[in-house]
Every structure is written in structure tokens, then in C-alpha cells.
């Protein structure tokens, strides 16, 4: 019920997908669920992506093919800086401003801000947590 409510209120549903088959399956289900809930725009975000691993590349290709036009223009890369930043209780932008993770987050933010006509960061974050759980 909570999910349905959140979906109905959302401006944009950001579905975070881990680079594993289970997340992939769940992500596609979420996409279908949003279509049922009155079709707020959906963006699939691939998290922890490592292009050196063939499965990651395949999943990315499958997401592109399976949900055309729904994929965010950036993938969050698997970057040790992110975990270390968390351990230091800092945001990655403070902890390692030149890291790939910081770069990805910046790109994502810029894209989100330009996609949403008015910035509703709080709402987006809530949805993010929702789909993660």
C-alpha cells in the first residue's frame, strides 16, 4: 500500500538496480508496477556497475533492450571510494571529489535536476529508498 501511494505521488521513480540477475528481475517488475499505478516516469539506474565483468555488461545491454528509453544516462560505478566514504561518514563528494563515484553522482544529480522541472530532491530520495528495500 505504501509503495502504491509513493508511486502515485512521485514525479519520477528512480529504480536502483544492482548488477545481479535478481535485481534485474525485480527492476522489471517495478517498471510494470509503475505502469499499473498511473505511469509516472521511470528511470532505471544501474548501481555498482563494473564494465570489466561480462555479466555487468550483459545486464546493461539487457536493461537497454528490456526497457528501452527508461535507462538513466549514467551508471553508478563500483568504486571503493564510495564504501570508504561511508566508513568515514562523509559523502563521496567530500571524501574523494575526483573519484568516479563522485563524478557519477554529479552527472546523476545534474540529469535529475534537468529532468524534473522543479527539484524535488526529498521526494526522489524517498523513492530511492523505497525501491532499494
Amino acid at each position, binding site marked *: 500500500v505504501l509503495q502504491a501511494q509513493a508511486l502515485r505521488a512521485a514525479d519520477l521513480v528512480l529504480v536502483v538496480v544492482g548488477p545481479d540477475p535478481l535485481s534485474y528481475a525485480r527492476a522489471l517488475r517495478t517498471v510494470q508496477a509503475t505502469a499499473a499505478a498511473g505511469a509516472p516516469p521511470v528511470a532505471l539506474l544501474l548501481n555498482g556497475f563494473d564494465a570489466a565483468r561480462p555479466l555487468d555488461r550483459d545486464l546493461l545491454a539487457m536493461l537497454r533492450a528490456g526497457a528501452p528509453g527508461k535507462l538513466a544516462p549514467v551508471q553508478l560505478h563500483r568504486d571503493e571510494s564510495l564504501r570508504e566514504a561511508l566508513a568515514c561518514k562523509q559523502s563521496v563528494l567530500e571524501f574523494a571529489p575526483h*573519484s568516479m563515484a563522485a563524478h557519477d553522482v554529479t552527472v546523476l544529480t545534474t540529469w535529475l535536476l534537468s529532468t524534473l522541472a522543479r527539484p524535488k530532491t526529498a521526494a526522489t530520495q524517498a523513492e530511492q529508498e523505497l525501491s532499494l528495500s
Partner: protein
Amino acid sequence: MNTARPAAAGAAGAPAAGGGALARLLAWCGVAPQATLWATLASLLLARPLDPAGRARWRAAFPHIDFSRLRAGDLLRLPLQLLWLALAVPPQARRGHLRWTFPARARWLAAVPAPLLRAGRALRAHLRLATSGSRRRSERFADHRLWDRPMTRVLAYLMSGVLAVLCITTPFSIEAQTIFVVMFWVLAMVVRRIPGQVVTLLLMVMSVATSTRYLWWRCSQTLNWDQWLDLWWGLLLLAAEVYTWVVLLLGYIQTAWPLRRSVVTVPLEREQWPTVDVFIPTYNEPLSVVKPTLYAAMGLDWPADKLRIHLLDDGRRDEFRRFAAELGVGYMVRDDNLHAKAGNLNRALARTDGEFVAIFDCDHIPTRSFLQVSMGWFVRDPKLALLQTPHHFFSPDPFERNLGIFRSTPNEGELFYGLIQDGNDLWNATFFCGSCAVLRRGPLMEVGGIAVETVTEDAHTALKLQRLGYTSAYLNVPQAAGLATESLSAHIGQRIRWSRGMAQIFRLDNPFIGKGLNWAQRICYGNAMLHFMNGGPRLVFLTAPLAFLLFHAYVIYTPAIAVLLYVLPHMAHANITNSRIQGAHRHSFWAEVYETVLAWYIVRPTLVALIDPHKGKFNVTAKGGLVDREYRDWSIAMPYLVLMVLNMIGFAVGIGRLLWGPDDERGTTLLNLFWTFYNMLILGAAVSVASESKQIRRTHRVQLELAAVLHLPDGKCIACRTEDFSEGGAALRLPLMPPGLVRDAQVSVSLWRGDNESVFPARVASQAGMSLRLRWELTEREQEIALIQCTFARADAWVSWSSGRVHDKPLRGLRKVLAVGIGGYGGLLQDSLTRVGPAFGRASALPAMLASLLPRHPQAAPAHPARSPSGKR
């Protein structure tokens, strides 16, 4: 830019009225201008060495002196530099560029009466105002409806014809000619300020007028019919001049209005896109050269079922067969090697049936967008049989490498692909250049496939197509890149083949006669062929002054002053006009160097081909080699050394004649001496091309900024950009240098091709500052393919190649070429001294030592702004 100067220089920059030199000097030493004598002395003697800011200032003011390690030579360097600092004022930002000024000049300017200065300034301002709107006005005039009436056009032609005849044939006295020349020059200089193609046409007309007048005068007044020796030399020189005039005139027509065609997208539905056969002919090139081309061809953006790639191996090598099979591309061989590349392609044409044929030399790596960019025009124009794109080279040709001018000065090919082909395109006379082109199969089969009668099958095929009424197009977007010839001898070999082939076509299928072409096409093709016959005339120009200096033959039978009055305008107008037309693609006088080097070698093949076009064979241009040591190619340089010695003898004799000869010959002697001097410098430049400089890397680095990610061994990733890349490695510019990146550390790098990311394992080769040099450690074929597709085959890889390059200025070009010429003599001297004995070799370092004594600009003044790394994402 001013901010880059130290603060002290800023104080000195304001021109001090009295004691300017001393004040400037003190300012460079960091002393405030208002300081008392005692304070000055104190700050000079005591405070200076203790103050780090002061030390930095010293370093800036004496860039060539290492104060921590003084040498004997510094005894001279110090006072010289002090003198220089005292005399020269730091650069002032003036009209956008920095320029050193001297107070003496300012004082001289101050002596000019103020009204005169004001008048000059007013005139300048007026001219600027007048020219700013003139482009529009000139174009509106050219577009006027009046010209659409045949009557006005005929009248205009008649009137200009009469004027031209008068202008060219009226004999003038020396005074009258002087006035005429000055007026013409002033007019050209004023008109030159107006941008736009209409004015370029006007300048062309003026150039043709002066040149034709010169030639008319030469024919009618300067031949000495009484002396057979004079006459013989005179006629020879005249013939060479007539040739130059013809080429100049035809060249103007050829480049009158470059078409600059833009890209057209393929308009059909994807299912209707035509099938394309990609041919990659090879003969003896190593697999390493062919690999990237195949990888890139596989990545061409075209429907997979409509794209067929064929490797045409005339060398019949098993290695190639296996490789093609592994990649899944077509592989074809034939049992003979008849007609070399043309035969190879023809055999493949017979065995395939795609609607279109794209041809790449085996070392030309296509970008992924090649077909999408080039096929649009074929759909739009059903008569189009050929579309050519430029040949782009990412490695330096021998001229660029040996003279150190890679990417700063345009090479020979850039003039052709940047301007001449675009000019040809206007007249529907673009010709095929053998590679990086798409042909329509139907018309190609109609002319019997690729032409086999000559050794330049490409140009001949295009000529045949155009005789049948098919059109051709040129698209000046570099969509493939390859390797330039490695050594000078290989380069010369290639040009010999081209010139022989062009001479063959000229004999066998002359574009000036025969059916099917319009006059402009005849001119464009004809000029291309005539251009390759420049060897003879060039040699005549290199030796003509010797006829007078050594044999006392009056080649031009007229007073020296008259020669100047006629020849100078001819050359000056031709130079400024060509500089305006070609400035972005060629720098003035460099063509002289390129042509001089080739002149001797192409004379014989062109002559032979003109007499008996069936002689001679096809020689393959060697590529992908490595010049592994520094050496001087004496055998190649020999003809030029001989010419050099002859010119030196002539010069010496001329000096003697100047000193001890009859008075009335002085002018002529001086003129010929000057000419010889110029020839000697050009020959010096030609000889320095023959000193092959060492090539360190087997793979060529391409400077291009791409987004990249460096993956460190500990799992962290750093976002960064590439500085350059090659097949063997890459350099990354990092925002911070992570600790622990020792030599041979294992890392990996992400690069993108569109949205697709690929990761390449690499090892650290070296690091310097914030840049990290890596060596690829690719393990799989997929990685090799992805690497080529992420780098060389990018759609935008070569687009901004020549950005940051300055437009040509004739005099700057001349200065640079002459400097190279002088350098040629220096190198020659050093080489020969080293040969005589090591002691002499050391003595040859003397000039460099002396040069190190010279004062130089303080460091803060940027001498030449460093070229920015080209290519942005």
C-alpha cells in the same frame, strides 16, 4: 595575458620618461621606481638573495642562467641579458597579441608630426569602417539581377576583355610601370581587408592581370635573339615561367569557389538502406597494420546484414587467411598479381554484388560513422558515382618529422584535401584518391571496373566515370585516418608513382581532349596532371641565375630595375592571393620545399611516361615501418647537394663580379645574387628534410582528450581524461596522483564508445607530474577490437585536428622556410665535421654555444602560446 607577468614588470611596463633604461632594469630586479638610492643599493645587495619572490624574479629575468650552478659562459650571458632587459620593454597587449617594443622606436614615432599621425589614424579608421560592410555589398553586387541577362553579361565580358588586353599589352616606360604597379598594389592591399569570396575573385583577377602582363613583357621585350646562348637559356626559363603561369591560372579556376558540401543523412527507411561491400586491399603490409583497419571496419555503423567486409590479400598469406576467418570477415586471394591494386579490386568486384563499394587502403582506419556520413549523397543524387573523403594521417610525414613541424604547419596533403578537392567539387570534378571513398557499383562496372592502364588507377577511374556523365562528390570530413609514409625515400617513391601515373593519363586519356567533359572538368583534371610536371620548371628556377653568374648569359635581356618592376608584382600578387585562398590549408613557401625535394626525382619518370606511357611499373608505398636511427639519407640528398654546390660557386663568382666587374652590370648581378641566395636557402631546407630523425615509438600517439576512468588496484576509480593514445598505450591526465602507482603496477582503464564502456587492462610505464603513461596489456581479441573502436574509430576522432593552428601570413611563412634553410646548412656542417673527426664534431657545437650566450625574453612573456591539446568531447 598581462597577469602572467611578474609585478615588477608591470611597473616597468609603463614607459618611464627619463632614465627609462635604468628604471626598467631596477624594476626587473624588484626595486620600486620611487626608491631612494640607498634603498635601491640595499635591496640589490642585501635583501635580494634572501627573498624567495626575488629569486623567482631573477629566474624569470634570466631564464638561461642557472644561478645555483654558474658556468664560465655566464660571465657573458649576464651582462648581455642585463643590456637586453634595459633596452627592451616587456610586451604590451596590443591588438590581442603580445609584441616587444623598443623605446627608441617610440621616440622615432614621436618625432613624426602629430597631424600626419592623426591623418594616418583617421585613414585607417575610415578604411576599417569602409571594409566592414563591404563583404555584404560585394556579395549583393555579385548577386544582382542585372547579371542574369545575357546581354549585360556579354557586354561585361567584352569590356573586361578589352580592358585586360590594354592592361596586359600596353608597353610602359619605367616610370609609368612604377606608377601602375604601385596603384595596383595599393588597390590589392585595400581590397584584401574585405572578407568574402567575391573579393577573393577580384584578387585573383588582379593577380592574373599582373602575371599575364609580366609574361607578355617577357615574351615581347626580354629575349635576346642575337646571342644563341642567351636565347637558349632565356627560352628555357620562359618555358618554365609559362608553365607556372598556366598552373597558376588553372589553379585559380580550380579553387575559385570551394563548394564545402555538408553531410546529408541517409533518408530511406532502414530496411531500404543499400548493401555495401567494404574492400581492404593488402599486398605486403604486416598484419599489425591491417588489424586496426579490420577492427574498425567491423564497427562501421551500418545494418549488419547489409555490410560485407572483404580482405583482399594479394600476398596470399596464411596468417591473414586465419585472421580473417577468426574475425568472420571475407577473405579473397587471386592467383596472379596482375595490375597490382587495381587488378586486386577488380577481381573482388567480380566476386561480390553489393550496390556500393567502399575502399580503404589497409592502413586507413575508418571511423564508425564513415558510411552513414557518406551514403546520404548517393541516395539524394542517383547520378552520383563516387564520393571521396579526405585522407587523414595521424603520423607525421617525413617532412613534418624531419623538420619538426607536425601539426603546426599544414602538410602537402592538407592543401589537396582541404581546398583543391573542395574546389574541384564545385565543378563536379572531384577525383578518386584510391582510398576512403565510396563508389556506386553500376557505373564502376560500366567503365570496366578500376582502370588498369596507368599506375594511378584512382584518378583515371574517376576520369572515366565523369566522361560517361556521372557526377562525383567530395566531403571534407575526415572519416578515416592512416599512416603517412615513414621515410623520405618511401615518400619520394610514392610521389614518383603519382607523377608517372598522372603523366600516363595525360598521354593516354588526356582530359583536355575526348568526349564527355565540360570545360571546367577538363581544367580541373588537366591541372591535377600538369601539377605533377613541375619537376622540370622547378629545376630551371633553381639554376637559372647561374646562367648569368657562371656563363654570363643574359637570360632576361633587360635592365635589372625593369625586371624588378615586372617580376615583383607578379610574385607578390600571386602570393597574397594564394595565401588568402589557401591560408587555412597551406602556409606560404612551404610548397616550395615540398616541390623542390621532389623536383629532381619526378622529372625523369614524367618525361619517360610522356614519351612512352607504357613503361614503368607499379610500386607499393611502404608503410608501418620504423626509422630506427638518426641518419642522413645522402643518396636522396645528392642531387640537392650538387645543386647547392653549383649555387654556392655561382654566388661566389657573383660576389667577385660585383666587386671587380663592370659598373653597369651591378644591378643585374645583385638581382641574380639575391635569387641564388633564395635558391640556396630553399635547397638548404630540402637537404634538411633528408636528415631522417629517429622515430622512437612503433605505434603513433594521437593527442586527443577522451573521458576515461582509471581503476586502481585497490578498487578505487578516478575520473580523468586521456592526453594521448596509441595502439600500444595511453597517457592519462589525472586530477591527483594516487600513491603507490609504481612502474609496472597493474591497473585498468575505462573508455567509451558512445554509451558502451570498455575496460582495458594496462601497466604503468611512467609518471611525470599529473600525467600517467600506461602500456596496454590486452589479453583478448575482443579487447583489441574495443580499443580500436573506442579510440581511432570514433566519429569525432579527427574532426578538430587542425584547431589552434594560425592562418597563414606570407612573410611569416617565408621567414620560417628560410630559417629551416639556414638550419639545413647548420646540420650539413655538423654532419660533415663529425665525419672528418671527433674534434671537429665538438667544434660544430660552437654555434649552439654562441647562441646560448644571446639574451632572451624573460620567461614571464609567453614566446609562443603552447598549442592546446586538440579534441574535446
